[in-house]
Every structure is written in structure tokens, then in C-alpha cells.
């Protein structure tokens, strides 16, 4: 369980997040949705500690992360996996070396065990025979899947994905979504996905937080979206004619 209490964040005097509170439950895909520039990436990066917060608290279980020291923070980070929007794979390392890096740094496994674990994670994300290729030699969808493999290689308790479907075709997006959902349920991970992809919201969103102008504007699940009277949420979710029609049919 991740608990966020009243966090605020500003950059050079410009406030981006306003007093946001939320809870993210294990075994569920928790989604943060919102328009571009609404502050959802800043919110996600504040939760994982890549951005310092101005006020508020972030708790991982019963450990307060926002005020933790270097060692404690590092220990909590080893329980996290983050899939970046662009993959953030190390371009000078092969696919296998990318996934193996956290194991090399923090595990006591033998080399054979590490290779076995890397292969297991790569197979789990449907990547085969690409161990010795470099990120530049594989497609965008494969890079995202390698990034997911790297994020899960240490058996994380918490998985964060920043717009995992951006730049991907609809079919690959569905593959990524299903993968995130399967991993979440299979390993009872607390997953937080940052997205503005409507298919993804409708497919895998167990718990959804709508961020509007840096505030927690609406909270619920995917079925509650259809009955919501929140104007800003409706403007965002049902912006296209197709989704308006789907809403009408649902209602």
C-alpha cells in the first residue's frame, strides 16, 4: 500500500501540485490520468522521490519515504520498479545487461542464476532471442517490454509506469496493458500507471485518480467514470465522438 498525504510541489515559485492525497492498493492497477501538463508525471515522480516535495508525506507501507535518509530511501527504492516514458534503457548495454544491472548491483546470485532470472523476466514480457541486441537495434514496443523486464527483475513490491503506451500502436499498447495487469495480479504488486490512453483506462484501470490543474479532481473506478457528473472528467474522458457514443450506450 502506498499512501500519499497532502503533497504539494512547485518549480521556481510556480505551483504544480496542490495538496494531493491518495492511496494505492496492492494487487490493483492504480491509474493516474489527466491532460498533458496537468501534473501527473510530476505527481508520479514525487511519489517515487525523483522530485522532492514542498509539503506532505509519502508512505510505503508503514515507512515514511518523503523524510527517509539516504540508506532508507535506497532500501525502499530497491523494492520499486519504474518504467519510464521513453524506456530509459542504457544505450551502451545490451538487452541482457540492461535487465541484469540491478542484479549485478544488489543481488548475491551467481552469474548462472542471474542469467536464468534475466531470461525468465524477458520471456515473461515475450522477448526471446534479443539478449545480445542493443536498445537501438530493437523496436519501441520491445524497448518498453525490456524496460518492464528490468523493472520487475528484482521482484518489486511497487511498480510505476509513466505513460507506458506512448508512441506505441494500439495492438502493442494492449499487449503492454495486459502485461502490466498480469504482473500486478500475479505478484500482488502495487502498480501505479500514469496514462492518458483511453483504451488503457477502460481496459486495466482498477482505481483511477483524475488530476486536473495539479489537484486530485476525481477518484473512482472505470465503471464509475460512465456515471460521473464531473464536468472536467467528462470533457477529458469523453472528448472523442466514439467515447461519447460508448458512454451513451453504457448509460
Amino acid at each position, binding site marked *: 500500500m502506498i499512501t500519499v498525504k497532502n503533497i504539494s510541489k512547485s518549480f521556481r515559485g510556480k505551483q504544480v501540485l496542490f495538496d494531493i492525497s491518495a492511496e494505492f492498493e496492492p494487487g490493483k492497477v492504480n491509474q493516474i490520468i489527466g491532460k498533458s501538463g496537468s501534473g501527473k508525471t510530476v505527481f508520479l515522480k514525487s511519489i517515487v522521490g*525523483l522530485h522532492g516535495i514542498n509539503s506532505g508525506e509519502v508512505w510505503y507501507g508503514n515507512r515514511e519515504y518523503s523524510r527517509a535518509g539516504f540508506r532508507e530511501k535506497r532500501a525502499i*527504492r*530497491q523494492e520499486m520498479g*519504474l518504467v*519510464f516514458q521513453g524506456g*530509459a534503457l542504457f544505450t551502451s548495454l545490451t538487452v541482457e545487461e540492461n535487465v541484469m544491472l*540491478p542484479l549485478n548491483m*544488489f543481488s548475491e546470485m551467481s552469474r548462472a542464476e542471474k542469467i536464468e532470472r534475466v531470461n525468465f523476466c524477458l520471456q515473461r514480457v515475450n522477448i526471446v532471442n534479443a539478449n545480445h541486441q542493443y536498445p537501438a537495434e530493437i523496436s519501441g514496443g520491445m524497448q518498453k517490454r525490456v524496460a518492464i523486464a528490468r523493472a520487475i527483475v528484482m521482484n518489486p513490491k511497487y511498480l510505476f509506469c509513466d505513460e507506458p503506451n506512448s508512441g506505441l500502436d494500439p495492438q502493442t499498447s494492449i499487449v503492454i496493458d495486459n502485461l502490466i495487469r498480469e504482473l500486478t495480479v500475479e505478484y500482488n504488486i502495487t502498480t501505479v500507471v500514469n496514462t492518458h490512453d483511453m483504451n488503457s483506462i477502460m481496459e486495466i484501470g482498477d482505481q483511477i485518480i483524475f488530476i486536473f490543474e495539479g489537484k486530485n479532481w476525481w477518484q473512482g473506478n472505470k465503471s464509475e467514470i460512465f456515471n460521473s457528473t464531473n464536468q472536467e472528467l467528462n470533457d477529458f474522458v469523453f472528448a472523442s465522438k466514439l467515447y461519447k457514443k460508448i458512454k451513451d450506450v453504457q448509460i
Partner: protein
Amino acid sequence: MFKVFRKPERLRIYLKQIMSEIDSIGLNSVGIVAIVSVFMGAVLTIQMAINFVNPLIPKYLIGLSVRDTMILEFSSTVICLILAGRVGSNIASEIGTMRITEQIDALEMMGVNSAGYLIFPKIIAAVITFPLINLLSIFLGIIGGYALTFVTGIVAMPDYLYGLHYYFIPFYVTYSVIKMVVFAVIISSVSAYHGYYTSGGALEVGRSSTRAVVYSIILVLFFDLVLTQLLLT
């Protein structure tokens, strides 16, 4: 800077990184250093020969001048100015690109001390390789001058060789190596700092790289003055 020198998470990985950086920073610079040093030695020999026209000045002083100039200044400071351009821009752009493509954030998220993992091996590799490059440059500069005397006969070869041996002060080599170690720390850490704190896009990586080279050069020249004052006077 404090984060750079924190205890490494896994020493073996850092050693591997250091070896890789020795290759990237040191061995890959040998070619350009060799070419520059040979030509510097040759040009110095010509200039000394042209200027030492007074018959009262013995010709062997040409060899001595070439040797001491290479040791005292050219193979340390001038070579470091070249390395600031080659190695400094390389370090700044590599780390800067890692920053803007979120690779550094990815390291932090794994719990890795990104500053230590990326910068510490570069500083150590520079400190190991720069003095070796310095010694190589001194040797090749003197060889460049020797080759020129052999080809052109601008100075009699026995005179040149006598000058090379004449009144040799071993401390000059120590001084040169000390300077090289200090310059290695300056170039690698200043460039890494500018790369690490890059923000924005590709344009900013270029700017960081330029800033890294400019600041490195200024600091190298400043510390050249300070060290010379401290060690030679």
C-alpha cells in the same frame, strides 16, 4: 561531489567501469596525443634552431630546450588543453545525454548512487591515464625533434642528443606528472558536473559540453599557474 565518493554498492562493478573508462578516456586519446606530441617536438626543434643563431650559444641547448619545454609545459598543459576538448566534451555529452533520456533517473530508481556509478570511475580512470599520456607525450615530443634533426639536419644529431642528456633535472618530470594528476581531476570532475546537471534537450547537452570544455580550460590554466608557483619557485 560528496555523492561521487560514497562507498560503492558493488566494488567489482566499479572496477569494471574503471577499466572501461581507461579504454575510453585514456587509450582512445593516445592517437591524437601521439600526433600532436611528435609535431610539437619537431616544430619546437625548428624554432629553437632558428632562434639560437648566436655563435656563443652552444647548439646542444636546442635539445635541452626541446626536452625541458616538452616536460615542463607542452606535454602537460598543452596536452591537457587538447584532452579538455576531447575527453571533457565526451564526458559532458555522455552524462548529459543520460540525464535527458532519464537513464540517470533509472539508475537512481534502482537504488544505485548514479553520481558515484557514473562519475567516480571517470575521475579514477583520468587520474590513472593522464600521467601515462604525459610520459608518452614527453617521449614522443623528443622523438619528433630527433626525427626532424635526422631528416633535415637543422641541428647536428650528436648536439641534439647531448642536449637531451645535459643537466637533466628529474624533479621536472615529477612536477609534470603532479600537474597532470591535478588536471585529470579538474577535467573529469568539471565535465561530469556539467553533464550531470544538464536539463532540457539535445541543445542543452551541446551547451553543457561547451561549458565543460571552457571551464576546464580556464581551471587548467589557473592551476598551471598556481602549481608552477608552488612547485618550481
